[in-house]
């Protein structure tokens, strides 16, 4: 075993004396699987919608036309590679687009799926924010005040806000950087550029 894993173990055992002594959380890895599932699901969802019509996909995400064309031409295996494990790639934003209202008012399965995905994302962020606010900020890119507000909400309140307002997905980083990693999914360089872009924000 290499040394960092041991450090984590050691710090963990020290933490069991009294959790309040050690303000550092050491379980960032616990969110990895959930974050990856969300990122991948959203990318695949926008790709599937773009397959029907690119303009429909553009209603739910804010990707440009050329980017969505690239996404359509990318194999699913490559999309699996570019979905992030440790940072959420999309944040939710309220939208009053009339087309969006039209889509959400039809009770199709696809639409219900979007709402449940959005709910899952907010639940995950609430969990992360309750655990440690700076980790939550790193993975979501939301401000501290927004996260505190979210941490204090109950399940019902979150469900209600999602029902009352329609949200769309907005990519957190820059689109051109994601496009780079999309066209060369094997390149560590392209992935690192898009990753740091996510961290830096727009």
């Amino acid at each position, binding site marked *: 075993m290499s*040394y960092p894993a041991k450090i984590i173990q050691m710090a963990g055992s020290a933490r069991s004396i009294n959790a309040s002594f050690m*303000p550092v959380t050491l379980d960032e890895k616990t969110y990895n699987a959930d974050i990856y599932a969300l990122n991948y699901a959203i990318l695949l969802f926008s790709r599937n919608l773009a397959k029907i019509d690119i303009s429909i996909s553009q209603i739910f995400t804010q990707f440009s036309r050329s980017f969505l064309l690239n996404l359509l031409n990318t194999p699913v295996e490559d999309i699996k590679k570019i979905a992030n494990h440790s940072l959420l790639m999309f944040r939710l934003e309220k939208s009053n687009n009339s087309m969006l209202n039209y889509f959400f008012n039809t009770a199709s399965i696809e639409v219900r799926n979007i709402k449940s995905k959005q709910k899952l994302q907010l639940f995950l962020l609430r969990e992360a924010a309750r655990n440690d606010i700076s980790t939550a900020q790193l993975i979501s890119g939301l401000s501290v005040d927004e996260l505190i507000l979210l941490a204090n909400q109950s399940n019902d309140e979150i469900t209600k806000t999602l029902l009352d307002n329609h949200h769309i997905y907005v990519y957190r980083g820059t689109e051109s950087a994601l496009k780079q990693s999309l*066209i060369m999914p094997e390149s560590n360089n392209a992935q690192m550029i898009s990753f740091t872009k996510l961290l830096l924000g727009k």
Partner: protein
Amino acid sequence: MKNLIMKVTTESLLQAKTLITFGLRPQQVKMLTGVTESRIGGLTKEIIDDGTKIATKGSLSANKILRTKNHFRQFSLWMTIYKAILSSEYDFQRKALKTPWYSNIDSNILIKTQIMFLNILDAEFNIEITETAVIDLAECLNILTEISTKESTYIVTCPDCGVDYVIVESSKQTDNCPFCHERSYEAERNRIELIFDNRMKA
């Protein structure tokens, strides 16, 4: 009052122990946590008795640490994560962020950054975490202090990809962006973009 003192000491002892394991010099540990040198000696002995491997002590200059492209890239990533965590923690504590950001060195955030950094390298970039492949916390701290003390070491933002990286004037390695200004990367990117453009036109 007695309790309060106990709390602070235990926390800083835990932090000191973690920092020693990450390979920081006793002087640096003392500066960051306020634990006396004799205590640090005892802690080091304790860690060795536990069988935990201590990373090699970092005392090199930035010029020598950034000798490979891998380390150069990894430091950029590390720096971005540190900056992100620093801003969230300081915002949360309602402290004014001192300018420039790299002169704010906090042991807690250092440990957190390193754990996050290792997690990200492992999860996103499939880099095996061994001593030689990954940049050390001690090395990163050395470069950070060098940036704030030396005039010939500074941070710049790449005009093409927008990622921050460090320039060490005495080094040939660190004269250009480690991400996008690599010959093979550029050639590959141009080639694939051309293929994509042709496919779009067809």
